[in-house]
């Protein structure tokens, strides 16, 4: 955005002919992937998003081993009259770089870092589930058409029209603390992944279905069919590779949606089981207990964490789409 429109004389872009002109370097054909990667690399905003994502993943993997115990109470850092941390900015100090939680005095940095592991884990797994289901049914609906398509498309409509939030609250409330051989937070995480992923697949399914409908009339599919290829081969060997671009783009865009949805469920009290740190629960606590007034940092920090994560994925996803499919720009 900040690039000046005026081309300054000394700073002309190296023209393509410059490459062709350099002698001795053989001209190489570029694969579609290479072209996309070059385009993506030139998109500074998307690259910034990508770098933040990599950092977030690193933090989620190794961070929890580096921070203090997120469940240790530090009541001595709390002013009992107001339940807020002593000192300004939510009790930020060298020992607690992001301050401490009101009421409990637990270290905010530790809770944010450990919370990122759960947020990303649920976001990624739910997206993976949605992509697998969505792609499978999308391809089948698009390729076969007819009553198969009608059936799957209507099923997708049903899922899209489902009052998901209500359903999620109900199911999390009904499932006991241990079921199907899982218990505690393992069960809760699986449940959240299932609910979020299982209801997000129609978005992916519709996009894939649309793509497949246009692809199946193309010559290469006809060619495959004419040499005797059958359904599954065409579906997964001919069509699927052509769908990598939309799958990649839309799953990148689905991840932040799922992270937000997880935060929303946490906010409503049907997410992770305390004292497991969770960004959504911190926000919820800040709002419902009125800490936004007496200790605004308690709301700002998890809010920022969610904001940065979601924005990084969105920026990267947008950039990826532009790189892979410039026509949609």
């Amino acid at each position, binding site marked *: 955005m900040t690039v000046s429109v005026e081309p300054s004389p000394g700073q002309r872009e190296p023209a393509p002919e410059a490459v062709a002109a350099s002698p001795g370097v053989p001209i190489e054909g570029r694969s579609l992937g290479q072209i996309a990667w070059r385009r993506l690399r030139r998109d500074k905003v998307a690259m910034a998003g990508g770098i933040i994502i990599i950092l977030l993943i690193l933090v989620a993997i190794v961070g929890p081993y580096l921070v203090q115990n997120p469940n240790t109470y530090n009541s001595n850092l709390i002013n009992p*009259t*107001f339940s807020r941390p002593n000192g300004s900015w939510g009790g930020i100090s060298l020992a607690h770089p992001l301050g401490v939680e009101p009421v*409990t005095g637990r270290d905010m940095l530790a809770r944010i870092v450990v919370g990122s592991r759960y947020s990303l884990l649920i976001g990624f797994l739910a997206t993976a589930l949605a992509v697998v289901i969505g792609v499978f049914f999308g391809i089948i609906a698009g390729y076969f058409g007819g009553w198969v398509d009608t059936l799957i498309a209507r099923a997708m409509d049903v899922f899209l029209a489902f009052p998901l939030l209500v359903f999620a609250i109900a199911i999390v409330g009904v499932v006991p603390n241990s079921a199907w051989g899982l218990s505690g937070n393992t069960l809760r995480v699986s449940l959240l992944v299932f609910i979020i992923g299982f209801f997000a697949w129609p978005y992916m399914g519709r996009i894939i279905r649309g793509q497949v409908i246009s692809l199946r009339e193309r010559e290469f599919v006809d060619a495959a069919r004419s040499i005797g290829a059958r359904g599954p081969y065409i579906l997964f060997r001919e069509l699927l590779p052509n769908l990598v671009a939309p799958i990649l783009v839309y799953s990148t865009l689905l991840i932040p949606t799922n992270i937000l949805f997880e935060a929303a469920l946490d906010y409503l009290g*049907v997410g992770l*089981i*305390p004292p497991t740190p969770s960004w959504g629960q911190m926000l919820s606590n800040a709002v419902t207990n009125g800490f936004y007034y007496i200790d605004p940092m308690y709301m700002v920090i998890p809010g920022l964490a969610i904001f940065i994560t979601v924005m990084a994925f969105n920026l990267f996803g947008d950039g990826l789409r532009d790189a892979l499919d410039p026509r949609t720009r």
Partner: protein
Amino acid sequence: MIATCAALLAGLGLAACSSGGSSTSSGGSGSSTSGSASFNAALSGVVNPSTHKGGTLTFAESSTPDSFDPGNTYYAWTWNITRLWATPLVTYESCPGNCGLQLTPGIATSLGVVSDNGLVWTYHLKQGLKFEDGTPVTSEDVKYAVERTYDRSVLANGPSYFPTLLADPTYPGPYKDRSKNLMGLTSVTTPDAYTIQFHLQHPFPDFNYVAAIPQTAPVPPDKDTGSNYQLHPVSTGPYMFQSYQLNKGAALVDNPNWTQNEDPQAKQLASKVVIDLNVNADDIDNRLLAGDIDIDAAGTGVQAAARAKILSSPSLMKQSDDALSGFLWFAYLNTKVAPLNNASCRQAIEYAANKTDQQTAYGGPYAGGAIASTVMPPNIIGHQNFDYYNAVSQPSGDLTAAKAALKACGQPNGFTTGLAYRSDRPKEVQAAQSLQAALARVGITLQLHGYPSGTYYTDFAGSPNYVHQHDLGIDMGGWAADWPDGYGFLDEISNGNTIVPSGNTNIEELNDPVVNNLFTQATSPTLTAAQEQAIWPQIDQQIMKDAGILPEVYAKSLLYRNPAVTNVYVQAYYGMYNYAVLGVSTGT
């Protein structure tokens, strides 16, 4: 006793059951009339005593009442405010301090008189009482008021003590009777126009408290419009409805047929009373502090933002009171779930809990409450102070004693059990986590199980079966009584006879013969009031010896009074300002 707090908790949400509050002593001892405003002045004395007549008294409420119909309401604040237009047979003495827990006649000439067998309660009505339209109040109107509460399909909200206690429990209510004056309820009789008798199934010494519920305020049968009666309850109090728009607000004006002589517990000072409904809670606080409104009707204390403002400003703090709400936050320690079926293991929990952290979780000393060491809060008749587990002397926990108790229990390295709490109650979530952290110090591991509050008492903590199957050794809870004596507070949460398969409130499943016997003694009809009151502390002490309940805090609410309001004091029964006696001064 049926619905006490289960209903309060389920239906009222935060109205009576969550409150904030603070500070140390409540009234009882203080001087009776102190004029000057200072912090907690309205706990022990009347602030701004005045007989000035006129002005508009403005209440604001962040939600809506369940109903302004005295026969159809179960919120603490509506019981308080209905005194402006509905006088029950018996009411509470209007005075600051614990004197406000005492019963006094309302439209009756004296408290009820019980027959020798304890089954018939007789009340005589004051003669010459009139409704707002000038028609005389008769015993038939009181009988009709009780009758209409039997029909839960029309009036669903009020408590159901009458069908539970009175003979003829299957009476369908007057609305199914077709002819309005049939008066079919056989367990209430009206020998003459000024006498009413209640015939009970079993002796019930606390019946006067039941007669103090707004449901006994007279309702003229020909003016009853069923569920629409709330739009204009026919007044027997100092004010009558001028207008009422559901969910928006009401305006009340002087009732010309009310006389101060006949109703000394209420006052008719302001010439108009306005009740604004559905006002944002933080907005109420701001307008209260700015002096635009007079009283926050909910009476559960200011929000966190206003609390911070008040507590950090000496001039605002002078205008506030930290009142005991009569509510106890506590944890049930189940006496049937292993290893908590051993009393020593429960005692280890009593010792190891960090009461300061619990207090902070519930909102700190001002908005949360005072650290509790007994089951009955100080504003309950029969409260006696004792501290078996050093809750007050070692508020962060007595770990040495806890470890000794664990050894006595045969679990020297601690044990694992479940902890149930309501996941949609932020303060309870905090309290559960703090208990988990505190007990971990002696090796007791708690597995947290959150449940929705709407079904907490029916399907989860209130279902002994569920509790046993899921190993819920500890269940968080809160409790307030419908009337302020030991029976009202203790019976439902500790009497072995009250354990039921669903909607159980004796969640610790305490079935101690000592406790049960004391309850049987206390309800014997031959007992004097003083003898009865001597039994409540014994029950409280026995529950604590059994360690069936881990008391956390006596809830308090930080209330703010507009300096312009006169005759302000906290009525101990409600734990909020007495709304029936307020006036406004001009000039401020």
